[in-house]
């Protein structure tokens, strides 16, 4: 999958960061090509979520650069990076709990259409926003719960809404922080199927511990240990790599 010629949508070179004396991210080079299904794995505390926060702009790197679509965004704020087509889901749900699922997605759609600062109501724009929002809800299968407040939804539905909010921004690059984490077994398939059905042109970086999700889903894997890239390659290469097994997997299952 990671053939040459496919454009790199997001890349980091020598990305490093430290919290006081502790080096948390050390010289990470990462490349996300269009349509890639890139998994980022590593033991707890390896710096996975910190790396995501660096990519999204929540945190500022000490050294190194981040580029989206070839443009250096290291200095840009979280908001500006979103405008360059970067979207994310959160490890812990960050939703508008008293609003309905429909309203949650409408906010994201309204932002994408550049209407979030508009002071007056226009029926036409409202119709378009509503239609697009319902379209996104349909993609993640939440139309039945569209008009129920988020706090009344099941945890699985809420995880799906996280994905819906990211999709509503029509991103080129999607960073997913443990999308299936904590989802009860009954609803896991709903989430996994949705992740599978994501568009082919979307570059996805997914952080996950769930090995069968990774091996079913990922086309390339980066293993992060102690803030540095231990190994990058296809799922098979990574599974066979001794160092990865010792540092992280213990025993990797085949296939």
């Amino acid at each position, binding site marked *: 999958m990671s053939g040459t010629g496919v454009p790199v949508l997001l890349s980091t070179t020598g990305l490093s960061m430290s919290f006081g004396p502790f080096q948390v991210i050390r010289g990470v080079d990462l490349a996300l090509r269009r349509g890639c299904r890139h998994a980022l794995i590593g033991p707890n505390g390896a710096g996975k979520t910190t790396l995501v926060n660096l990519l999204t702009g929540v945190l500022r790197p000490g050294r190194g650069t981040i580029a989206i679509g070839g443009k250096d965004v290291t200095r840009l704020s*979280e908001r500006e990076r979103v405008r360059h087509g970067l979207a994310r889901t959160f490890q812990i749900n960050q939703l508008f709990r008293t609003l309905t699922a429909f309203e949650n997605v409408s*906010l994201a759609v309204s*932002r994408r259409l550049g209407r979030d*600062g*508009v002071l007056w*109501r226009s029926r036409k724009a409202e119709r378009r926003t509503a239609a697009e*929002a319902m379209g996104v809800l*349909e993609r993640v299968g939440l139309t039945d719960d569209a008009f129920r407040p988020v706090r009344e939804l099941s945890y699985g539905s809420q995880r799906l809404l996280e994905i819906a909010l990211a999709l509503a921004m029509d991103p080129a690059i999607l960073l997913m922080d443990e999308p299936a984490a904590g989802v009860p077994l009954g609803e896991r398939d709903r989430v996994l199927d949705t992740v599978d059905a994501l568009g082919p042109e979307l570059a996805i970086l997914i952080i996950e511990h769930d090995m069968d999700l990774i091996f079913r889903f990922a086309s390339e894997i980066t293993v992060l240990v102690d803030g540095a890239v231990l190994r990058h390659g296809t799922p098979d290469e990574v599974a066979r790599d001794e160092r990865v097994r010792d540092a992280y997997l213990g025993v990797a299952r085949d296939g």
Partner: protein
Amino acid sequence: MADPDPLEAAADPEALGRAAQAFVRARDDLRPADAIPWLLALAVPFLLSQECAFGTQILIMVLFALSLDFILGYAGIVTLGQAAYFGLGAYTAGLLSARLGWNEPISGLLAAGLVAAAAGAVSGWILLRYRHLALLMLTIAISTILYELANTWSWLTGGFDGLMGISISPLLGVFDWDLEGRTSYLYALVVSMLCFLALRRITVSPFGQTLHGIRENTARMRAIGVPVLGRLTLAYTISAGIAGIGGGLLAQANSFITMQVLSFDTSAAVLTMLVLGGTGRLYGAMVGAVVYMLAADRLARLSPEYWELGVGLLLVFVVLVCPDGLFGVVDRLRRRGWRWRQ
């Protein structure tokens, strides 16, 4: 919120779109019931014409509470310095007439709104980066500094004795400012109604939804690319402008103001009114202002200390028993009643 009829099995986009439309209209469109408070207010100069003077003061406080509700109820920004903008508006309208001889009321009111809005924009851009006690204290400090300046520059503001020499020319050149206060009442009513309609439209506009989102979850709003500080500053500017218009109304209706319009007591009073009524609904501001002013006036006639004791007890009751305010209770009943009928 009105749940549209259950969706058909086939999720065709057409039906989904219509259902969403129905939901949005049910939530946001003006309902006939929205006119009731204004019709009641319109009846006052005809049925209770003696109450026009007091009614004007209530309407001014309603407008002032509406301005605070927009920033507190909708954007979730807790401040204790709203009097700074109310006072700025009052002194702008007052000084225009008293010192510069510009007595035309409507333009004076617009000037009051603009000056207060400008102050809101500047201070908002700086202050809204802060939260909780820091924001509270910063807003208190700014209104107190303005209060001190009004006393120090008494050659300009008249200081403690108040700003004398305000004489507003008749409204629209025709309506004189009669003793009974009928003109000032209708003037205040029209202005506060227009401001209410403007706020009502803004709260249901996409911007209004954005504020709602910011109040719910700022982190998510940043993650979907919303310039949070910019949106909050705009909301703070609108809120300050409307508070300024309220202050301007006071200056013109009474053609007299003192430093009291900038004091901490004024900020605390309008916050009390708003929370009494219930935040985040605009109607809460109306109910709260009317109940507070009537209680303060009528209880004070019984005995001086009663009104403070009365309002204090009412406050403790509201916070403990119906935290989303007196109107909140009405709202809940209305919704429960609605759901019961569903």
